[in-house]
């Protein structure tokens, strides 16, 4: 009987072992990391909004405090997205002709709110609360990044559960003095403005504020 397979088949069979290992390895690596990829988490992806509101203009340029618009961030779970009345405190006076602001003016006239596109959106089975984080000295910037530099809003963190837990397990790496929570450019320093290590400062603040985040499932999944 003639040979069924050409001579090269043996080499092919051997190589296929390696190929299978590589393909399966790569496939698994990708599969296991899907929830961490930019593609799925939308980290660093600026969302298109009905009005191209720029935090960079309004925070760095105009010098507004976060609480001017996100009024309830200190008392409530929800930070609040400002109503158009807040915008109109200024935009009824300045840039009144700007075509970009037309949706704001229209919403002001008709009373139909603007439909902002959510950038940070936890699944409904997760409970999150801003006030506790603000009160225990977690800066907006720790979770939301340098908002004052963002022409359009984007996420800098995945909001995956591992991300929440990373801090709940080691909050000393992230805490800052309460009065610095809204400071976008804060660096670890003592009262006199000298740079200190986060490790020292964090350990101190943990004691001062009595910080002890829970990692029980029912903290976030109620």
């Amino acid at each position, binding site marked *: 009987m003639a040979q*069924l397979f050409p001579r090269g088949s043996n080499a092919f069979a051997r190589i296929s072992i390696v190929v299978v290992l590589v393909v399966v390895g790569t496939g698994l690596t990708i599969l*296991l990391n899907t929830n*961490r990829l930019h593609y799925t988490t939308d980290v660093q992806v600026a969302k298109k909004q009905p009005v191209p509101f720029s935090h960079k203009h309004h925070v760095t340029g105009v010098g507004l405090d976060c609480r001017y618009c996100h009024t309830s961030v200190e008392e409530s779970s929800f930070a609040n997205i400002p109503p158009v009345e807040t915008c109109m405190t200024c935009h009824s006076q300045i840039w009144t002709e700007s075509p970009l602001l037309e949706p704001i003016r229209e919403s002001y006239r008709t009373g139909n709110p603007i439909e902002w596109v959510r950038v940070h959106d936890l699944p409904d089975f997760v409970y999150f609360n801003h006030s506790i984080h603000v009160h225990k000295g977690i800066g907006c910037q720790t979770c939301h990044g340098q908002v004052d530099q963002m022409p359009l809003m984007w996420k800098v963190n*995945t909001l995956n*559960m591992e991300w929440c*837990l990373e801090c709940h397990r080691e909050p000393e790496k992230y805490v800052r003095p309460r009065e610095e929570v809204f400071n976008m450019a804060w660096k670890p320093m003592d009262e006199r403005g000298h740079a200190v290590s986060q490790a020292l400062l964090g350990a101190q603040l943990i004691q001062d504020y009595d910080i002890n985040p829970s990692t029980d499932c029912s903290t976030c999944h109620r």
Partner: protein
Amino acid sequence: MGSPAPIKDPTMPAPVLGPGQTYTTVTQKLSAIITSRTPLGWIAAMLIAGAILQLLMLSATWLLIKGTGIWGLNIPVGWGWAIINFVWWIGIGHAGTLISAILLLMRQQWRNSINRFAEAMTIFAVMCAGMFPLLHTGRPWVAAYWLLPYPNTMSVWPQFRSPLIWDVFAVGTYFTVSLIFWYLGLIPDFATLRDKAKHKISQIIYGVLSMGWRGSAKHWFNYEMAALLLAGVSTPLVLSVHSIVSLDFSVGLIPGWHATIFPPYFVAGAVYAGFAMVLTLGLPIRYFYGLHDYITDRHLNNMGKVMLATGLIVAYGYAMEQFFAWYSASPYEGYMMQNRTFGPYSGTYWSLILCNVAIPQLLWIKQVRLSPSGLFIISMFINVGMWLERFIIVVTSLHRDFMPSSWDMYHSTPWDWGLYAGTIGFFLFMMILFIRVMPVINIFEIRQLVANKSKHAETASADD
């Protein structure tokens, strides 16, 4: 019966091979099952099994759309048919491993003609078993992070102290090792089929599957070594898998799940169920393809004995459960047993005793062990009985536990039936397909039997 050869010497066991077998007849007969024209009966069987298989598709799809609410499980019986069927199927797989591993190590020659399809059965049964926990999650596509420990984005790991995660490893290992063992044994036979095949495409397919097997002495040496090692690896699996399945129950707090006999009693039950299923499938195959020379009276007799022995262990397990309920002096255990024996499910309990304890006692009679129809009927009873056993364990313990205010009855729904019947369809479908494309009986091991026999014959005639 195909081998009417009377047993002459009462001290010698009946032969494991019919008379007049040579290398050629063995190879011809066994590879003809695959290379001959497709028999009509095969097509009919395939159509029936395929139709039942559609039930699986339907029930699983509807389950994924609607969620586990379509099943009868609810508080207090949160572990309904999904667990019952899982345990039932896993148990059925056990005969394959026992035959291929333990009987190989013990050099039991009669294993040779039944090991191949018993191993195939193991693999398909474990597949059926695996479907139930996966579907029970309701969302099988996220089940990976509930079942497997991997660095996920929730930075949580499965609970390593829970037997449910041990189960994942036990069943996973069992499946992998069984698959490799089965495949290894098939390699020399694939080579035979490659050489027998007439069509170019089948030559290539069997050629690839046989991985370049040429039957050289070196090949055989490696093969024997690998088979022995795998047999060594699989042997503990025969005991570990069902022990761990039993721990799923024993680690819980529910009355009726604590009896210390659980692991061995489950293992014996598994082997019992496994042999029953080997007979349920083996007897029709033997009849249809006329394999009486390979699956001889000796095989039937031995399998009957194994069933009798494991059945007695299982019966002992039932007795010990009763004893334990009394001896524990716990009112909950006591009530559970009273409820199991005389409560609303007593009918099921007594049918279980009938199927698993009473009827199999007929196996004491040699004529019954040698009669294919008798064995077939008894094995059917055992298949049903083993299912009832799991039903009794799961349902009677859960439906009335510590708090009378939460007591309730368990009612299965058509979807429970659909999924269960569907997996049976899947199992039959795979088995029937298997018969047609792979040798049901190990060709080369039977040839070895022929070789041994002729060697004995030679020495015998030399002695004369």
